């Protein structure tokens, strides 16, 4: 026994590392090239997001919510807004709902683009990173035109939005989504049938259906294992039940399937965006909320709101005690469970597979640590 253990090497892939997507520490035990055990240590990016809610009013807490998952700021803002609106019985107009869907789907597209670039960089190909960032740059400048900032938007308010979208902006979106399918096709040309990529990701990191349900995995990771669960179809919120889109799914649950699934999701995002833009151009309306935000007092109660974020299901639980500050806010994010399943996937796999598996799970650390 001791002889066996003395051949094992303990390696620390430390919090500062050029490729763990955030500050995550992995303590690996290697036996030659095979990983025997892995222990992820999180908490390096804990900012007390949930505690911050207890000292601030609802309006003061709203801008900080964008920062829980900075790549999907709109999703977190919507989850919190939805919880508060349901508790306080605030009505939201239909135009607001369409604009919310539009911005959230564009955010999903930009998040998947960044995931693709960094996943390829971990694999060793340096060009796709620059191509996806070039496309993401266009989305971010569109958002800057709309809200004033590229990432921390602070655009939703309780009951509506800060200001309306203009038709000029909607025309720019139409131009943008005309060129996107060609670019996604470019990425597929470089990556999908590439034999090196296929041998590196096929049958690697298989999440079985049973394991996915046991570990509460949600989002694209779950759909890649063959379980077709998507909050936008199961419990439609906003106006998703009026829009026409499909939910892609795959069979095996390996890294290659997760990749093809996210590419398919990007195409679906484009479909939803074009439908929303068509509706918005035809139907003007009111979006600015009539609620006096600084003086908002929410009646007692508790509510959980769910939203399908790019990394899983993001839930926000808000409990209020009748005053202007929440009593408790709890966030449940999708990447936390992906980090939890990582040791199981890495058992008895080769060391170079670490990046193939970890990159394909699309983990982002601010979501894990909050």
């Amino acid at each position, binding site marked *: 026994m001791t002889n066996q253990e003395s051949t094992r090497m303990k390696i620390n892939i430390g919090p500062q590392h050029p490729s763990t997507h955030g500050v995550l520490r992995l303590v690996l035990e290697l036996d030659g090239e095979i990983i025997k055990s892995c222990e992820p240590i999180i908490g390096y990016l804990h900012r007390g997001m949930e505690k911050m809610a207890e000292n*601030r*009013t609802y*309006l*003061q*807490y*709203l*801008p*900080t919510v964008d920062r829980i998952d900075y790549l999907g700021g709109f999703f977190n803002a919507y989850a919190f807004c939805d919880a508060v609106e349901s508790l306080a019985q605030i009505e939201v107009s239909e135009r607001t709902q369409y604009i919310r869907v539009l911005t959230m789907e564009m955010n999903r597209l930009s998040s998947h683009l960044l995931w693709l670039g960094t996943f390829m960089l971990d694999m060793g190909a340096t*060009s796709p990173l620059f*191509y996806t960032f*070039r496309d993401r*740059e266009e989305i971010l*400048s569109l958002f*800057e*035109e*709309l*809200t*004033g*900032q590229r990432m*921390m938007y*602070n655009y939703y308010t309780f009951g509506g939005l*800060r*200001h309306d979208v203009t038709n000029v902006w909607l025309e720019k979106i139409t131009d943008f989504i005309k060129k996107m399918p060609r670019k996604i096709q*470019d990425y597929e*040309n*470089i*990556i*999908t*049938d*590439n*034999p090196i990529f*296929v041998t590196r990701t096929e049958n690697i990191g298989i999440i079985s259906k049973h394991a996915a349900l046991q570990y509460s995995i949600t989002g694209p990771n779950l759909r890649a294992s063959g379980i077709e669960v998507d909050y936008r179809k199961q419990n439609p919120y906003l106006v998703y039940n009026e829009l026409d889109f499909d939910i892609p799914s795959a069979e095996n649950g390996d890294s290659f399937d997760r990749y093809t699934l996210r590419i398919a999701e990007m195409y679906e995002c484009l479909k939803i965006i074009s439908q929303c833009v068509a509706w918005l151009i035809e139907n003007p309306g009111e979006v600015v909320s009539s609620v006096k*935000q*600084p003086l908002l007092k929410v009646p007692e109660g508790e509510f959980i709101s769910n939203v399908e974020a790019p990394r899983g299901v993001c839930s926000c639980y808000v409990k209020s005690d009748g005053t202007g500050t929440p009593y408790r806010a709890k966030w449940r994010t999708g990447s936390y469970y992906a980090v939890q399943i990582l040791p199981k996937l890495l058992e008895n796999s080769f060391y170079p597979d670490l990046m193939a598996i970890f990159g394909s799970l699309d983990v982002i650390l601010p979501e894990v640590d909050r």
Partner: protein
Amino acid sequence: MKALRYIIALIVGHFTVFKHIFKRPVTLEYPEKRNELNEKFRGEHALTSDENGKLKCTACGTCQRVCPSFATIKIEKEKGEDGKFYPKNYSIDMNKCIFCGNCVQYCPFDAIIMTKNYELADEKKSSLTLDINTLKKNYSDTIINKTKDNRWR
């Protein structure tokens, strides 16, 4: 024939990367060229004044109450000659500001705006606390130049 499919995919992939040399580079040569920003951009703050040069701010404290980071805005009130309040000292601590724009959105008198200046780095820490004179000056710069330009050229 899987091998044939892979070889064709490799050639197509190389060609896809190759054709990008004929496209224009998207590099923006900062600091000689800068991005164009629009009116809604959330940069450095400025206190507005009306036609006579008097500040519109009445020191009501709403901006303090909606700011997510608590100690950012500090106001000292004083009663003026015509009975209305005005701020004797108004300071914004840029170390704590998260540029959310709540103060601009919820000010009842449109007394505070955010300019397009985002190059706020400096060598002295004291320049990161904007007091009332700097804020007034930001606004007059904005009116005169139409945009507040960078500090160094």
